[in-house]
């Protein structure tokens, strides 16, 4: 039966050639884009690893305020670390910047695109992207700081894979920024002659042993360094802005502490006189009370602090003596004075206690501030200005990193797009199954089983996906496709020419992925359609579709039948168009 039904597949293909050809072409197109994208990405990714090895890419770089001495360099090297100066300065003219460096010896070697390394002092190698953007050829003359150079070669270096001027730049402007590599002698001449202050002291390192980047960083920080050696004006600003600020803060707090100490001392003095003041007030009252006692002794009364007021009042009432009444008033006043004095001395004591608390609080503040400033204003200033590991350096492996994202996106987009294409195909197949429903039912009645038929219906989609995948893959791997993808890389990044690679996984992906997805998607869709009983298939029972709900009563039977037919077709067309739209959208996002 299989063989007989296969004949049908070919006839199917012939009858619906346009439809299947269009889908085939779409699959080819999709797989072509994915393959060329992934393969070219793989060229870049694998090529980068290879070239990095070959050209001894740095493990990282750091810059310092004051160039390291030979002893310091040797002490670093003693830790199994390769280190090379990549000092440079920027020469700018007409808004263009050329970064001048010497030809490298052991790290971040130049990969020549064309020509030779500078042999004479008046020769230089120009970074290839700048050369090409500015149309500079080998043998051309260029001027730097008034000196005339002949371009002996063009090329690239792994630490400027993405040739951006500042680390923080986000896009490459090769027309305005390039690098010139001159001989060592020429570089030194530049520095001495032009008295160049803007030189950057950058070192590239390669770790060969146990010594880690963090070890190295600490090692440099711990090196002896006197910041007065630094001539750089910015550096001096930096010092006054950091260390200076720290001093301001400590001094301010010290003044506060001193003030609070003084305050507390003064109050302590005041408090120490509290008893005297109180005693004086009490004494005055006692004296007057004595006098009063004498004055009223004739009445046989003994006046005390507690009873003088009531006793005297009684006497005044009896004697009507105005003197006594005045005496009482005076005693009242004195009593009040004595009370108030006591209250006052109490308050003074309280204030003194408070000032004590202020003082100890201030001392605490001082201690804590010292702790903090020690933590944040790293007590001593060191020579290290910048320390950047290669993996954090946006200039290094930039092309490879970008292509890695592209590769993964591409592989994923391929799967998603294939699912959509296959869904579209499955709509065709379902349409066919529905139109053959009664035939299928009759075959079921005769004993044919679902599994006999399902693989038959899977065959054509799988075949188309398989052929589409392979064809797309072949075109995707073609020189034309890869070259056009690679040219995008070469026209942005400053990278050496990479060899074409043929990753096995991608070959498998092209051959297997489309047909597997075709099988899965169509199986899911078709299985459901074929899982009906023979009778319901023979009667061609279909789920109440929306189309039959459309009210077409005002049309004649034939006309309404035609309209339903058109509506049904429109639904398929819509599904297909929508599927394509989504597929294209994903490709756009992916690329």
């Amino acid at each position, binding site marked *: *039966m299989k063989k*007989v*039904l296969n*004949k*049908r597949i070919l*006839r*199917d293909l012939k*009858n619906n050639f346009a439809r299947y050809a269009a889908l085939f072409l779409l699959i080819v197109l999709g797989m072509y884009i994915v393959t060329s994208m992934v393969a070219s990405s793989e060229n870049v990714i694998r090529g980068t690893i290879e070239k990095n090895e070959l050209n001894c890419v740095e493990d990282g770089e750091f810059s310092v305020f004051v160039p390291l001495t030979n002893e310091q360099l040797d002490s670093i090297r003693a830790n199994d670390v390769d280190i090379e100066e990549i000092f440079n300065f920027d020469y700018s003219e007409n808004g263009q910047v050329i970064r001048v460096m010497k030809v490298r010896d052991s790290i971040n070697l130049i990969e020549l695109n064309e020509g030779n390394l500078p042999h004479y002092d008046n020769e230089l190698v120009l970074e290839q992207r700048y050369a090409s953007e500015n149309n500079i050829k080998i043998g051309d003359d260029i001027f730097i700081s008034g000196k005339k150079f002949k371009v002996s070669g063009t090329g690239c270096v792994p630490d400027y894979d993405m040739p951006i001027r500042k680390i923080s730049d986000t896009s490459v402007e090769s027309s305005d920024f390039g690098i010139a590599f001159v001989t060592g002698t020429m570089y030194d001449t530049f520095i001495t002659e032009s008295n160049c202050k803007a030189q950057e002291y950058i070192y590239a390192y390669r770790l060969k042993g146990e010594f880690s980047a963090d070890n190295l960083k600490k090692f440099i920080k711990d090196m002896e360094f006197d910041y007065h050696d630094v001539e750089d004006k910015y550096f001096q600003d930096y010092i006054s802005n950091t260390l200076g600020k720290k001093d301001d803060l400590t001094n301010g707090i010290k003044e506060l502490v001193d003030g609070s100490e003084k305050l507390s001392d003064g109050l302590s003095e005041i408090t120490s006189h509290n008893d005297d003041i109180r005693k004086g007030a009490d004494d005055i009252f006692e004296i007057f009370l004595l006098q009063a006692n004498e004055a009223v002794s004739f009445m046989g009364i003994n006046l005390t602090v507690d009873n003088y007021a009531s006793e005297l009042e009684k006497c005044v009432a009896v004697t009507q003596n105005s003197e006594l009444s005045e005496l009482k008033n005076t005693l009242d006043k004195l009593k009040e004075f004595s009370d108030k004095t006591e209250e006052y001395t109490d308050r003074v004591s309280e204030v003194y206690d408070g000032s004590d608390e202020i003082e100890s609080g201030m001392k605490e503040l001082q201690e804590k501030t010292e702790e903090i400033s020690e933590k944040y204003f790293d007590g001593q200033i060191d020579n290290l200005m910048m320390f950047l590991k290669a993996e954090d350096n946006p200039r290094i492996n930039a092309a490879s990193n970008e292509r890695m994202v592209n590769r993964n996106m591409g592989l994923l987009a391929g799967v998603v797009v294939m699912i959509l294409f296959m869904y579209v195909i499955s709509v065709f197949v379902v349409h066919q199954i529905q139109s*053959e429903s*009664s*035939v299928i*039912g*009759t*075959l*079921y*009645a*005769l*004993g*044919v*089983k679902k599994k006999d038929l399902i693989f038959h219906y899977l065959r054509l989609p799988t075949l188309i996906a398989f052929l589409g995948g392979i064809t797309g893959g072949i075109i995707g791997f073609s020189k034309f496709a890869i070259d056009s993808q690679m040219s995008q890389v070469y026209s942005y990044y400053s990278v050496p020419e990479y060899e074409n690679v043929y990753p096995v996984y991608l070959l498998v992906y092209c051959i297997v992925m489309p047909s597997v997805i075709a099988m899965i998607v169509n199986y899911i869709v078709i299985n459901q359609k074929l899982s009906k*009983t*023979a*009778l319901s298939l*023979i009667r061609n029972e279909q789920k109440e579709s929306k189309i039959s709900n459309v009210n077409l009563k005002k049309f004649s039977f034939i006309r309404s039948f035609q309209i339903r037919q058109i509506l049904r077709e429109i639904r398929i067309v819509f599904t297909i168009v929508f599927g394509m739209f989504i597929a294209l959208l994903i490709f756009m996002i992916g690329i």
Partner: protein
Amino acid sequence: MYLEVKGLKKKYGNGSNIVSVLKGISFSVEKGQMCVIQGTSGSGKSTLLNCIGGLETTDEGSIKVSGKEISGLSMSDFSDYRRDNLGFIFQFYNLVPNLTVKENIKVCEFLAQSPLDIDELLKTLGLTEHQDKFPSQLSGGQQQRCAIARALVKNPRLLLCDEPTGALDSETSRDILILLEEINKKYGTTMLIVTHNNSIKEMVHKVIFVKDGLVKNQYENKKRIPAKELEDL
């Protein structure tokens, strides 16, 4: 007894709108017999045939085919039962549209362990000259002959025909009937033929009348008239 149906009942629907279609049908057919089932429209003839053919489940009663009980089988057992025993012919031919006559027959060849020889079958059915034509290039009678050939290729012991001549004119109908008669003779195939045509009952061994889901009348023909000589088809 090749086919034995006893107390067969079948309802459709649920709840308030239950329709009782077969209400206890009993009859039997002997091996190699041709049997016609007649009855008014809606009397349950097709339902009966579908139950015997394992296309429809039954509610009560038993159906024995060559001694084996088939009511209550699972769907996949039904499928095996149909494959091993049955041929089906419907009023509509339901041929695979983009396969030729010969290919349409071949589709079902694999279902049997010892299928009939296709060329011989084509000759018997008078389809030899049409074997490479597609269904759309054939007349209705030719298509029905092709459908019969497809049902017969696996040499079924029981052939179920639901109005096989329903869509054909009388001359073509006669051709088909002659053919069925010939096959019955040649291969000893037991046949159940549902038909509205009153004349057909004259040519078969046994006639069963169904009314309102019950067998109203059944008899065996003492004297059969060959299909060739049937009148008023």
